[in-house]
């Protein structure tokens, strides 16, 4: 009988995340994201004024001690900018987390049941998907109130079916593979097969989907605030700031332009990350090194 000599040592191929980090666009995207998140964390502590403090005449520039002047009520634009990112980021992160978790679970469940449960989940998804994301969120927050919880629920609800469909698609091909059959033959429980056999094999698409949904959540939550559905209308919030100060953009541009830049940079950062991830995933799917 022969003994096995490994003639060739094969290195373990590095995972999606690590490969993606070698791409320029992911590095830039992640860098931008870290800066923006850092800004929203540190911002409130370094803000020279409180978010509701009246410091001078409204809509004025060139005020000593106020870098970007005052807004339409005479509050410090710079301070409100530094403070106003936190709620958007917190809300969109929570909404993304909730939406993708529920979506992933339902997607996996649909893929593994392949019967009436699958049908039921998918048709519910179709109903939710028939509403544009912002419309569904608006409907909910305008029916009740724009509390943080409800905003998160509303955005998560519109995120769930989008994630669910992707995960179901990815999981369907995994479920057919022999190692899932092998686990079935051994008598593993359904729930274990779901989380231990199938889930680890859909992390690639899941990661891409999380970063993509995060981008959309930021935009949706900022839009809701712009339309007047912020949890606290008097508090600083990038979306609210744009709406409040857009009328006076000609005389005092910073009040609207600063939050616009912030939201744009934030979404570009997450967008670059998700793009890098999906490029690598597509490359890996084709069997390449993911360049």
């Amino acid at each position, binding site marked *: 009988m022969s003994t096995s000599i490994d003639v060739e040592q094969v290195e*373990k191929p590095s995972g999606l995340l690590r490969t993606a980090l070698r791409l320029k666009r992911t590095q830039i995207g992640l860098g931008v994201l870290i800066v923006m998140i850092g800004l929203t964390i540190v911002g409130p502590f370094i803000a020279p004024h409180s978010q509701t403090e009246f410091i001078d005449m409204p809509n004025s520039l060139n005020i000593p001690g106020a870098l970007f002047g005052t807004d339409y009520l005479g509050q410090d634009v710079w301070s409100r900018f530094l403070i106003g990112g936190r709620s958007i980021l917190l809300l969109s992160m929570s909404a993304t987390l909730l939406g993708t978790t529920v979506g992933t679970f339902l997607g996996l469940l649909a893929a593994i049941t392949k019967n009436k449960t699958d049908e039921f989940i998918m048709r519910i998804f179709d109903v939710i998907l028939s509403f544009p994301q912002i419309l569904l969120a608006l409907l909910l927050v305008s029916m009740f109130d724009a509390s943080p919880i409800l905003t998160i629920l509303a955005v998560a609800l519109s995120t769930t079916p989008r994630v669910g469909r992707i995960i179901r698609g990815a999981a369907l091909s995994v479920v057919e593979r022999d190692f899932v059959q092998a*686990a079935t033959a051994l008598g593993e429980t359904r729930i274990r097969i779901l989380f231990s056999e199938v889930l680890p094999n859909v992390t690639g698409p899941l990661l891409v989907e999380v970063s993509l949904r995060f981008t959309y959540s930021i935009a949706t939550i900022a839009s809701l605030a712009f339309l007047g559905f912020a949890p606290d209308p008097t508090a600083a919030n990038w979306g609210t700031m744009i709406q409040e100060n857009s009328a006076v953009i000609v005389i005092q541009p910073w009040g609207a332009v600063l939050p616009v830049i912030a939201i744009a940079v934030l979404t570009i950062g997450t967008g670059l990350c998700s793009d890098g991830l999906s490029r690598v995933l597509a490359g890996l799917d084709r069997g390449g090194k993911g360049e």
Partner: protein
Amino acid sequence: MSDGLRIVDLRLDVEATGNDIVDQVTISIAKGKVLALVGESGSGKTTVGLAILGHTRRGVSLNCGQVFCGDTEILGLDESAKRKARGHLVSYVPQDPSSSLNPALRIGLQLREILEAHNFGNSSEARNSRIREMMEEVLLPTDDDFLRRYPHQLSGGQQQRVGLAMAFACRPSVIVLDEPTTGLDVSTQAHVLATIRQMTSKHGVAALYITHDLAVVADIADEVAVLYAGRVVEQGLVKDIFTRPAHPYTRHLVAAAPDIATKKEVVGLSGRAPSPGKRPKGCAFALRCALATDECRNSFPEEVNVGVSHSARCIKVGQVEHERIAPKVTAVTHSQGSPILELREVSAGYSSIMVVHDVSLTIRKGECLALVGESGSGKTTVSRAIGGLHREWTGSMFFNGTELAKSARQRSTETRLAIQYIFQNPYGSLNPRRTIRDSIVRPLVIGGMSKADAGKSVLTVLDQVNLPAIYATKYPDQLSGGERQRVAIARALMSNPEVLVCDEVTSALDVLVQAAIVDLLGSLRKNLGLAILFVTHNLPLVRSIADEVAVMSEGRIVEFGPAESVIGNPQQSYTKSLITATPSIARSLR
């Protein structure tokens, strides 16, 4: 006779790294002759085949070399001249006919396209008559109805014959056949091979036949070139290669190939060929060669003539008389153990279509029962029903006297662990996100053992399948196909099973690895008293491994009996035709 195809010193590199995929390939084929290019997966066979068409795959670049088709050098031509040469001067028959024909076009139209692209024939009538002529040559109907069919309305063998007709359409002088019969059943394969042989000799075409199946080589080829790690290690006439192989690698290949005409113990070889960039500067086979010396490892061996048009790249040729590669496992003994698994009138199907009818089988302790049949015969459905993976069946199954429930979920844990199923494709049967240890402890953990206790058995089991302990911490991606299949077997052995259901476990593996796996199963059976149900379409292999054979056709068992008598002296006409259609090395050389 003049050369139809001449490849001179061909070298192709991986574009990114500059490492060679194939190097120093020099082959010539006379008109009307077939040369078989033999090698394991990854040896560079297809790369050479495509280079003859002046084509390189993405990421592969030509370093040096020339390819002459007749008097034309292909590699030096510009793109448009290459395009004209393809199909006209040199043509290609790919492996999978179902994906090489355009599913949206009728076959008549596809044949016409070739002729039009190369301005063959000057009128529509001339082309029409050429199409009919081509169809006649490959033994297909020539009527309009048939030509108006779409590829999916043809059988696999018919599709491949359309592929052959397309390749021969413009009367090329060179044809490259890339494993054209790999996906086909033996009887279809026999017809396709006959067609290829007849077409090449009739039209004086030089054919390069790429394959890994030595029995097919013996059947169709005049000459053989053996490719190992991108180098031609031995070249010669078919008879010389099989009866007097000079290179140790060729010897191992011949020793590993099962043969339907003789009862033969197959001998495997462990390890794998080094991939591009990992090749040593000396002989690439030195790492696995029992005769290797420092000289082998340090300098790349030159071609040595060992006979009339027979050469090998081995410095040991002529110096050392190679000992015969002898099987070490003792011959299969016929066991008369007690019945362990019994099937009584099992019928199975998918919703309303029945694919298995009244199958009754008995497997005894320590016995290897081979279930053979062509694709669609229902053999896999039977094995899946035994494994509890297919629920739609009627009849009854008894395991150690107790009746088995339909699906794995309804069976008791002990039963599930006692009957272990091993899958065809080792690339799919292991979870890529788990280490080998985590994969193979599962049967014991399900059996109620703690993970730590179960972990203790891992090393014992890895040792049983001849894998080093270090493999426990690896991931499936780091293993070769043969090693993965060993891991799959190790997982099955964890729970001390009584029956192994092996579903085509060697069909995705190269012949040397196949022999090693067969070897392993044989010794496990002997040492552990396992009963094995070996499901396969590979008849020659059956003769090397099984005690009893059940031949299945269209969902029924048509012949059952001891392996030697069923294959050596078949009674049923179906079995007879199956065996006659199976190519055999011994029979071809006779």
